[in-house]
């Protein structure tokens, strides 16, 4: 919704003038779900489906992708390569046409997440500086015509950065520094004895606003959701002992410190030290979190922190807010729509292909 603010529209009109040939209209009516997905043939795809199950596109790509981020007003989206990929893909979100294979520069690889700036000109990714394994880098790319060009980088002020999102001012980034060092072409964790996870707020020019940590050093801060009022929620993956009692969700409300979200002991245990994706529904003030190891989708009231839903969904993966509530995907079963508009949350299976959906989805 924030993409349709007045500022965004002003930016849109300016940009449309500069990029001839693009139209502002989106595929009418039905929301389109964007996600990375594997085919039953074992190949990697980037796909778009309307929620009624009709396919918009399915484009094969060389590397498995992780998150996707649409352009604020042009029919473009970047599917970001899953770590330690050196490729991301700029596609036309109307037909899936591959417009650019975006290569990371030497000694850098992607971590699976990236975001367009609301003016549509800039794209930012989290990257690994493999000359200093795990040093977090914010890659800065500029959209020139139909190509992204890397123009610079900033430090993320942390190790092993993962998801990044905009704060409501659309100028400040919140970055989850997972705290784990990995080398080029590797997913092996090098520093479990000396992890340094952190939550960083960073201006677009690379200047640090704040850096905060949770008490547990092995609690890797990985995924994020940001509410319209600036409330940040993070989902952790704990790398310590399976028996350790560590909360896996944290929250930073406006003007407050980064701290644990009050998580019920039952939910904590079910998560099995692992959370995947987060989404916030701004109108309903709800927080949804997928826990693929626990095979559960959880929904909380963001303000009262009351648990609203605990639904069984094997290997649940991506989650995003839609008007009715949330759409959730799964690596193994059918995608579901959770209608949260009344006190009793109801789930409906969607007629999209079942299973093999990757960790994140976005609704266009």
């Amino acid at each position: 919704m924030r993409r349709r603010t007045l500022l965004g529209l002003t930016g849109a009109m300016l940009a449309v003038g500069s990029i001839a040939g693009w139209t502002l209209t989106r595929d009418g009516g039905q929301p389109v779900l964007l996600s990375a997905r594997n085919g039953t043939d074992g190949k990697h795809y980037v796909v778009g489906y309307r929620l009624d199950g009709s396919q918009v596109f399915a484009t094969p790509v060389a590397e498995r992708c992780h998150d996707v981020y649409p352009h604020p007003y042009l029919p473009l989206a970047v599917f970001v390569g899953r770590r330690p990929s050196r490729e991301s893909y700029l596609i036309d979100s109307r037909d899936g046409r591959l417009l650019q294979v975006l290569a990371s520069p030497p000694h850098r690889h992607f971590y699976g997440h990236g975001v367009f700036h609301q003016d549509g000109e800039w794209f930012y990714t989290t990257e690994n500086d493999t000359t200093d394994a795990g040093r977090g880098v914010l890659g800065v790319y500029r959209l020139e015509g139909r190509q992204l060009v890397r123009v610079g980088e900033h430090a993320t002020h942390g190790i092993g950065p993962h998801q990044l999102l905009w704060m409501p001012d659309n100028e400040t980034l919140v970055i989850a520094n997972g705290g784990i060092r990995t080398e080029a072409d590797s997913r092996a964790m090098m520093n479990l004895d000396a992890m340094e996870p952190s939550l960083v707020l960073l201006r677009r020019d690379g200047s640090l606003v704040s850096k905060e940590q949770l008490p547990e050093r092995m609690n890797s801060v990985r995924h994020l959701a940001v509410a319209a009022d600036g409330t940040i929620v993070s989902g952790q993956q704990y790398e310590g002992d399976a028996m350790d009692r560590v909360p896996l969700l944290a929250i930073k409300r406006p003007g407050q410190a980064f701290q644990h979200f009050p998580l019920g002991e039952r939910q904590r245990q079910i998560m099995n030290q692992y959370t995947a994706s987060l989404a916030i529904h701004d109108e309903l003030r709800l927080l949804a979190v997928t826990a693929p190891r626990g095979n559960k989708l959880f929904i909380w009231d963001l303000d009262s922190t009351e648990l609203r839903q605990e639904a069984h969904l094997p290997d649940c993966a991506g989650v995003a807010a839609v008007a009715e509530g949330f759409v959730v995907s799964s690596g193994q079963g059918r995608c579901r729509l959770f209608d949260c508009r009344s006190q009793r949350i109801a789930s409906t299976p969607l007629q999209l292909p079942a299973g093999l959906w990757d960790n994140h989805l976005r609704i266009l």
Partner: protein
Amino acid sequence: MIRSYSLRIASGGLLTALLLSACTPADPRAETSKALTDGVLLPTYSQWAEADRRLAASAIAYCADNQTTEEAREAFVHAQTAWAGLQPLLIGPMGEGNLAWQVQFWPDKKNLVARQVTALLNTKPELTQADLDGASVVVQGLSAYEYILFDKSIDLGDAAAKQRYCPLLTAIGEHQQQLAAGVLQQWQDKDGVADQLRRFPNERYAEPSEAIAELLRVQVTALDGLKKKLGAPLGRQTKGHPQPYQAEGWRSDTTLANITSAIKGAESLWLGANEDGLRRLLSAEQADLAKRIDAAYAELLQQLAGMNQPFAELLGNDAGRGELDALYKRIDSLHRLHQLELARALGVQIGFNAHDGD
């Protein structure tokens, strides 16, 4: 007026519905899920709950000197092997949270069971049920029970020792009985797990194939778990140095009995109670795979039946270790047959995001 009309429609409709349901070929996946629920899952959960009921009764009788140590140990072995047989069927409440840890604590790399039992009884010599229910999972389950009944450092022939450990034995028995009864209840409740595996769609499963997929996944997870349970004492993670105390049930020498029970549990999902298990979902073209899986179960169970030496002895000599290595390879190949070939044949995706690590 409307009511009588709809009644007439209903009686005619009922007949039509009966005829239709008799003629419409049912979804084989729905049928299989229902057959496994009634023929395998519910009976096995009931047997486990019954074994724990007997365990609780045995603890009370033993502590009242109405049972011998041998009888108490038998009740433990029965409960332990019933639990092992349930491993490939850990769907629903038992597979969530750390409930399984409350039943058994494995692997116990730091001998936490012995240390925590000692610490608990030192701080609470007059241990109550509430004390145990609020204590660490390490002392709540069968592993602590086994430690008391089988560990060489504890002489239960000594009246003072028996008096010291008995409150814990009876509390564990009760804790296990209640836990198992509660889980069984969740299976049997209206719209409980059994109902969800019988009628589709429901809140848990959008369609029968989701239920079949989950049944296969818990089976695969258990087979993988058996590789770890055998691999740990064989030293597969420790450069080949055998680790006898990493074996599941080393104190009671139930290691191989547990493996046998778990393999039989997995086989019951494969075959079903009346040839109505996962096997029948394979088509005629997949008959070769079905035969290979049949053979893998048969060979494995045959080898296990012939292994009569205590596990620690087998681990202690070259010939025995050779046998255990062969056993490991057979479990490994059974695991692969399920994880790769059976999963592909049934169109089931095993693990994707849960093992993603991103």
